[in-house]
């Protein structure tokens, strides 16, 4: 068979082409075949609340984080109903400015930003502050000098000087309690250092902890030695910044300015995401691209982030298809609808597995109940399927609203289910129920779910995601595998079980007048026929003539 030969050549060519493409990408772009360790991306949300003054326009300036070591900002956005937003610079510091003509009632504004923890990032936008000439009145000036004297004698450079100042302040004495009644601790440290001609400034820091809400910023003191600086914690005197501390303001200016409002307050919530390092690298590359420095030029990476995520789901689809083909052809699992399980598993990717399973099962069950009622009405197919679609949409709507009301925000995600596909599934299962009974429905429904979960697990795996996103050659390999499986003529795993009783019977019993297993007799005949067609056919013809003659005699 020539076509079969061509088929194998094409399949092999696809496989090799895919493999070569992967190797090429691996070698030229240095993309690792396996995802490296994970990176952390912190999502920080600042919530600003204030009460607007009556009949005035409101302008809110909120300081946003500047460039700093250890963190790279990936993206930022705001949400604030009816406000104009702009990013502005005030005295060299970055602010977001919200404006509204006439706000009424308690106002809530959100600023959200993603930060990638990146130990290699070491740029900083912090500037050396000017030393304020202090005109301190008595008895404070004397008290400060006292601390300066103590610190000076015990230190060797600006940094150790700062540590000593903090230590002195933290000692409970009359001097310190006098000073602390006038200044906050961090302001005091800055003032005292300035008196000693050491540049210093108060910066605010957010401690990043996963899943925290209602957090506020913490003051720290930045102490400068020429252009380099160190951060100090004024309560402990510890120096340096921890990997989970994000500098929010690195300038002396205010965090929040509200014009046209009162009782303003800021709180922060924090969320940590772990992403594969390669993915983080891609995010980073796209940020750098946005800022004009083109370092990577790989096909998918060059797309904007949002388009990338769409593209990624498309790239994952063949993985799901491969799993379905494998489970159906090699294992022999029955599913309802050929690729319905893949679409369900795509929905699982959006909803997370547990929510997805609960959502799917409840939608299908309710749908089946409604559909069984519809079948009493003897509707035509199109009307019936439309009714089921509307029912499915209603069920999805109810589930998302109900769960949201109860406080399960996850419930809203059931809207990710492919509604048309679900409706057809319900239709098909209900026909199956009528024709074959509930057992078959359980077998096929369970089979579909099992396949969907398998496909989900594969598509959700970090390694598989990494490979599919980075190596387009994989798609060719998947294609060749699917082609090969489409030509698999061996037994399905389920058939090994199905034919077990038959195998036992054939082995133990001969049929009728047979003296050996039929397959043996026939295989011998095939061999004879192939080796010597003419003679064998002649022999058979003679046998037949004899038989006919014999039967003819018997008939008479």
């Amino acid at each position, binding site marked *: 068979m020539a076509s079969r030969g061509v088929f194998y050549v094409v399949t092999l060519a696809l496989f090799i082409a895919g493999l070569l493409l992967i190797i090429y990408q691996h070698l030229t772009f240095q993309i690792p075949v396996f995802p490296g360790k994970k990176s952390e991306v912190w999502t920080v949300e600042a919530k600003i609340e204030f009460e607007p003054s009556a009949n005035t326009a409101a302008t809110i300036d909120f300081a946003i984080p500047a460039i700093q070591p250890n963190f790279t900002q990936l993206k930022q956005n705001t949400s604030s109903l009816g406000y104009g937003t702009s990013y502005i610079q005030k005295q060299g510091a970055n602010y977001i400015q919200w404006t509204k003509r006439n706000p009424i009632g308690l106002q809530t504004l959100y600023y959200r930003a993603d930060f990638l923890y990146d130990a290699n990032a070491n740029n900083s936008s912090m500037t050396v502050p000017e030393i304020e000439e202090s005109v301190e009145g008595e008895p404070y000036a004397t008290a400060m000098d006292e601390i300066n004297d103590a610190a000076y004698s015990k230190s060797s450079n600006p940094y150790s000087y700062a540590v000593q100042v903090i230590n002195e302040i933290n000692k409970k004495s009359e001097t310190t309690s006098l000073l602390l009644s006038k200044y906050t601790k961090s302001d005091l440290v800055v003032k005292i250092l300035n008196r000693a001609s050491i540049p210093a400034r108060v910066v605010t820091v957010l401690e990043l902890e996963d899943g925290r809400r209602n957090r506020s910023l913490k003051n720290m003191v930045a102490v400068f030695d020429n252009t380099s600086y160190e951060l100090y914690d004024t309560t402990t005197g510890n120096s340096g910044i921890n990997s989970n501390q994000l500098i929010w303001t690195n300038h002396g200016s205010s965090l929040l300015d509200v014009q046209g409002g009162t009782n303003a307050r800021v709180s922060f919530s924090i969320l940590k995401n772990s992403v594969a390092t390669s993915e983080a690298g891609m995010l980073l590359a796209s940020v750098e691209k946005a800022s004009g420095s083109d370092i990577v030029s790989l096909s998918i990476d060059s797309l904007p982030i949002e388009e990338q995520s769409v593209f990624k789901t498309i790239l994952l689809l063949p993985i799901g298809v491969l799993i379905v083909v494998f489970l159906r*052809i090699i294992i*022999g699992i029955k599913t309802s609808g050929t690729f319905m399980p893949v679409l369900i598993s795509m929905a699982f990717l959006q909803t997370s597995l547990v929510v997805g399973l609960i959502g799917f099962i409840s939608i299908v069950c309710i749908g089946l109940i409604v559909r069984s009622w519809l079948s009493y009405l*003897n509707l*035509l*197919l199109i009307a*019936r399927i439309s009714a089921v679609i509307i029912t499915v949409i209603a069920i999805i709507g109810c589930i998302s609203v109900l769960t949201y009301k109860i406080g399960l925000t996850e419930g809203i995600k059931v809207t990710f289910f492919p509604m048309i596909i679900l409706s057809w599934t319900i239709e098909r299962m209900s*026909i199956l129920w009528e*024709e*074959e009974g509930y057992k078959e429905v359980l077998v096929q429904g369970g089979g579909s779910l099992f396949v969907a979960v398998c496909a989900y697990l594969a598509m959700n795996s970090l390694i598989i995601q990494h490979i599919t996103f980075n190596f387009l050659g994989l798609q060719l390999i998947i294609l060749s595998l699917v082609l090969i499986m*489409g*030509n*698999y*003529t*061996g*037994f*399905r*795993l389920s*058939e*090994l*079980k*199905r*034919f*077990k*009783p*038959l*195998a036992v*019977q*054939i*082995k133990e*019993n001969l*049929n*009728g*007048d*047979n003296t050996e*297993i*039929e*397959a043996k007799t*026939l*295989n011998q*005949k*095939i061999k004879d*026929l*192939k080796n010597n*067609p003419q003679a064998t*056919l002649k022999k*058979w013809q003679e*046998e*037949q003539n004899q*038989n006919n003659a014999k039967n003819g005699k018997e008939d008479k």
Partner: protein
Amino acid sequence: MSVLNFLSNLKNRYANPWQLQSFGIMGMNQRNVNFISRFNQRKLFPLVDNKLKTKKIAIEHKVKTPNLIGVVENQQDVKNIISILKGSKAFCIKPSRGSGGKGILVITHAEHEHFIKGSGQVMSTHDVQRHLSNILAGLFSLGGKPDIALIEDLIHFDHVFDGYSYEGVPDTRVIVFEGFPVMSMMRLSTQASDGKANLHQGAVGVGICIRTGRAVRAVQHNEPVKYHPDTEKDLATLKVPHWTEVLTLASSCYNMSGLGYIGTDIVLDERFGPMLLELNARPGLAIQTANNAGLLPRLKLILALPNRHSMSISQKVQFSMQHFGVFNS
């Protein structure tokens, strides 16, 4: 230890694929790739999925089928049903694209607008018309597609099979490969199968020897049985009469449909002998269990025949009877 247990458990529940292969048992993938998609052209499928089309080509090729009384295609025909029936006394109404016996209405006696069903129940003209409307609306066809109804003569089933089947009438399934009858089985309905002849619902499958028409063995739910579970009849005594005629009829379905690998369903009428009831382009694999033999060696022997395309129907039937027999006489 538990590993050994697991392995022996696996061995008890799953067959060894190489053994299955040596017995020539055909699996689903094998059937789909090497037989259905190779020998059955896609465009010919509607011929067998639509009973009206099957009937038309059967008449064209002089293949015996129950006589077609009329066709009901629209509501107008439903109203005119009495004139379409042309005074027939016994007939059968079925959806053209139905399956599994759904929507089949058997009328054994019609008189003065009273219709007596096979079960003895009496129907009015109005009841029959409603049934026809349901068929047209697609209530019985696959996926609920609109359909048409066929009305054909009632088959008067041959009494040789009395007692072999519970309620329903047995039909004979013959697998035909390029005109050669390859394997055959009879499906007997049981109480468990609800009078339907579907093996997976609990009907009994009886393998039939191609040479003689005698029962080879019987299985229910994949396990061998000796007696019919409801009627207690000894299934080994079953023998299909007019056997050569049955095979000839089955074989002629290849020329008629052009499909290389088909299942033909044949019934025996006491007046007209074997008649074709329907064709199936995707015949199932359970026939192997009923015959205690694999399909593949038989199919391969036919494929190895160099002159198979030039053989006549009777030569093909002779060949099959010579080589695929289980009993010598």
